């Protein structure tokens, strides 16, 4: 395979145009840290965004930041932190979990539509993504969206590009809305709950005006795999509150009042709270170097625990929950069991299961992304053709 690292958008466009002319496929990578997700791509050329770097516009008072796609996420986060701002959707870092190396890039964050625990209140990457520049499969340089927070001018191709895993275009520049970082945070841990009681507690917490910005449940013994093990291994149902110190304190009290009797409470202070949520977002409980298959399953929050129970009846699996229980991370101890997982998702109100970690052989054999109905598959294929008529960009990466 031919590796190229263009140093400009124009150069990248020329490479794709040439590949299109020859009808040859192109694999698009950022830092390569998530190459192990989705169907393995067989391509003649691998094109990296590593040469397209730098924050191109950032005025904190506008709450908007534009950067070239290959800019390391770490660089962006540092620039934002220097102005007490942040990306609200809490970008995860999957390197330890996926046992991958390299620098996660801002472009790949958009292309994979990633998000962390704050997803439930702040949306995913796509909700903060205001604009993109990209190169389609014909090698045309295009832009969609812009630098403004509200924009309904024409079709929203920004959303479509987000989460398209490089199958519609090579992102060259992205613009994200950013947010002031709150003064502080605390986490209320409710201890000792079984999964169904935890789901119930989390639903109650999110029905209050406490503005919970993270709701996760770690069953025994996974609770000891986050935040340096300080939680011990008893089940921990975690509710995060962010804001002014005084307000955080009052909202934690409000949660305690609402959940009185549910279980024993522990309040986790700022530093430890940050470490815990970082680990939950980064899937630290399964950063285990085992390489065992791990599924990321999104369902209605109240279905998560019932799904997990059913799964564990049919296959050996460990699970933990984010997003109020609606995001189940499941590690299968033997085979990936795609059929079981997907059947049970359908049986529990629907949603989707993505195989986030598995060997290339497994990812070639089962569809890592949730197969869709024939009507949506056909529609999506027509949309893909509209961007990439010859099907040269990351062919097959998203399945089926």
């Amino acid at each position, binding site marked *: 395979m031919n590796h190229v690292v263009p140093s400009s958008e124009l150069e990248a466009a020329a490479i794709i145009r040439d590949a299109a002319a020859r009808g040859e496929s192109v694999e698009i990578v950022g830092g390569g840290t998530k190459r192990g997700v989705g169907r393995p791509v067989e391509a003649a050329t691998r094109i990296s965004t590593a040469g397209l770097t730098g924050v191109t516009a950032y005025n904190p008072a506008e*709450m908007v930041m534009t950067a070239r796609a290959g800019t390391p996420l770490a660089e962006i986060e540092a620039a934002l932190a220097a102005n*007490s701002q942040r990306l609200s959707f809490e970008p995860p870092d999957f390197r330890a979990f996926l046992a991958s190396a390299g620098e996660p890039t801002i472009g790949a964050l958009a292309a994979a539509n990633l998000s962390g625990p704050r997803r439930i209140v702040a949306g995913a990457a796509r909700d903060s993504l205001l604009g993109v520049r990209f190169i389609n499969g014909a090698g045309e340089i295009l832009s969609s969206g812009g630098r403004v927070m509200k924009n309904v001018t024409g079709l929203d191709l920004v959303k479509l590009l987000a989460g398209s895993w490089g199958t519609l275009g090579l992102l060259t520049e992205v613009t994200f809305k950013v947010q002031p970082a709150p003064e502080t945070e605390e986490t209320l841990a409710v201890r000792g709950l079984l999964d169904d009681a935890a789901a119930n507690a989390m639903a109650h917490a999110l029905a209050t005006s406490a503005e919970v910005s993270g709701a996760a449940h770690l069953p025994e013994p996974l609770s000891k795999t986050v935040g340096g093990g300080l939680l011990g291994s008893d089940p921990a149902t975690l509710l995060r509150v962010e804001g002014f110190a005084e307000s955080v304190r009052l909202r934690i009290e409000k949660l305690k009042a609402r959940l009185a009797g549910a279980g024993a409470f522990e309040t986790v202070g700022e530093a430890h709270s940050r470490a815990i949520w970082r680990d939950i977002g980064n899937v630290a409980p399964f950063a285990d170097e085992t390489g065992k298959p791990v599924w990321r399953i*999104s369902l209605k929050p109240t279905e998560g625990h019932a799904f997990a129970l059913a799964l564990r009846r049919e296959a050996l699996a460990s699970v933990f929950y984010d997003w109020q229980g609606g995001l189940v991370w499941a590690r299968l101890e033997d085979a990936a069991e795609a059929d079981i997982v997907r059947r049970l998702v359908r049986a529990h109100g629907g949603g989707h299961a993505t195989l986030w970690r598995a060997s290339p052989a497994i990812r070639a054999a089962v569809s890592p992304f949730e197969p869709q109905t024939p009507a949506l598959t056909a529609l999506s294929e027509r949309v893909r053709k509209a961007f990439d008529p010859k099907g040269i960009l990351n062919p097959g990466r998203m399945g089926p």
Partner: protein
Amino acid sequence: MSAIAFLEPDAGVIARRGAIIAGLVECVGADGLVSEERELKPFETDGFAAYRRMPLAVVLPKTTAEVASVMRFLHAEGVKVVARGAGTSLSGGAIPEEDAVVLGLSRMSRILEIDLPNRLARVQAGVTNLAISDAVDADGFFYAPDPSSQLACTIGGNIGMNSGGAHCLKYGVTTNNLLGVTLVLADGTVTEIGGGALDGAGLDLLGLVCGSEGQLGIVTEATVRLIAKPEGQRPVLFGFPSSESASACVSDIIAAGIVPVAIEFMDRPAIAICEAFAHAGYPLDAEALLIVEVEGSTVEMDAMLRKIVDIAHRHAVMTVKESQSAYEAALIWKGRKSAFGATGRVADYICMDGTVPLSQLTRVLRQTAEIVAAYGLRVANVFHAGDGNMHPLILYNVNDPVEAEKAEAAGMDILKLCVEAGGCLTGEHGVGIEKRDLMRHQFSKAELDQQMRVRAAFDPAWRLNPSKVFPLDDRGAA
């Protein structure tokens, strides 16, 4: 300045009107069809009332299955379809065409499911925006996007336009609060996109459909996110000696790390109009007014308001009105929420909707005033300052064709200014017919062609709301 064109109606379709109506009656029954000229009249325009077209017929299905059968039939007959919610579009998005059938969702107005533990509601597309919040209010929840037209406009129309509202600074617009839709495609195929789980599988077709102005399919049902109501909400009203000082105050509030739920701006003409209508106690001596709303617990609101008032004082604020009661809060909002209606009592107006980066607000406001003055007209500005979404209301007399032309021309100049300032043509009202012919100012030919190819992936024959959004000439590449 020529009037905005529509596509040439297809005489062959119009000649078959009788047969088409008969076919539609088969799909929805006689009571689901409007075809008498007198009864069609209310459908001939929308909130962009300067333009009107009589449709071939209006069909009012009651179920997704009926919508599917109507769409199958019209697909077979090769007839155009214009989806319609409440018809409050300000960009002409719901204006019919003479050879098109209007598919109205008004009879699909049931709330199908309220699921509080999962904080979602599943509703039919014709449910009004406010009805959703009303249905869950007693349980302490609400549906966040709140267009000023929320009493009338439908969730289907909100999805069509990706509508926003005063409170979207914190909670986002329609697309950020939408979990799923049932979409009937151009050929009548019924699809489910998304649902109760976050972030659907595959390409984000949900995000694409939101804001697609009835061109990709008919939304018959939607699943939307509900949010627990804040403990309290409190607005504060400021009067400033200049637009510059008000804009600088907005920038500083944001730079200080405070994101209020809403920051609304009015200039002197808008203040006078709204005060005369609402008697809200607005300061008539101010050149600019801001309404800043915060929410949370009393402690949190107090702390944020203290910071905000301090910042305002650094910008020579003349009037500070902190609401002491729910009554006073409602009064502060009453003036703002009735701005369009109040303006309509004073003069006819067209409302622009460009969005600009926050750093450009002051300059664009000043140049907007210059542009409108050069046409010999008046302008009142009332808009969402926190997100740079401007709403200059250009006042004119609708019965004076020369003034009408000038108003339209001034509006176009303002929108070009917004694009040139790094912004966009429309922040929440949509392109419709109104801004269609300006699309080339925002997008290159290759970009428009890309969008049109995506559109064609859904509607290859260009039958869905075809006169809207994309310039009428040069659609060949798609």
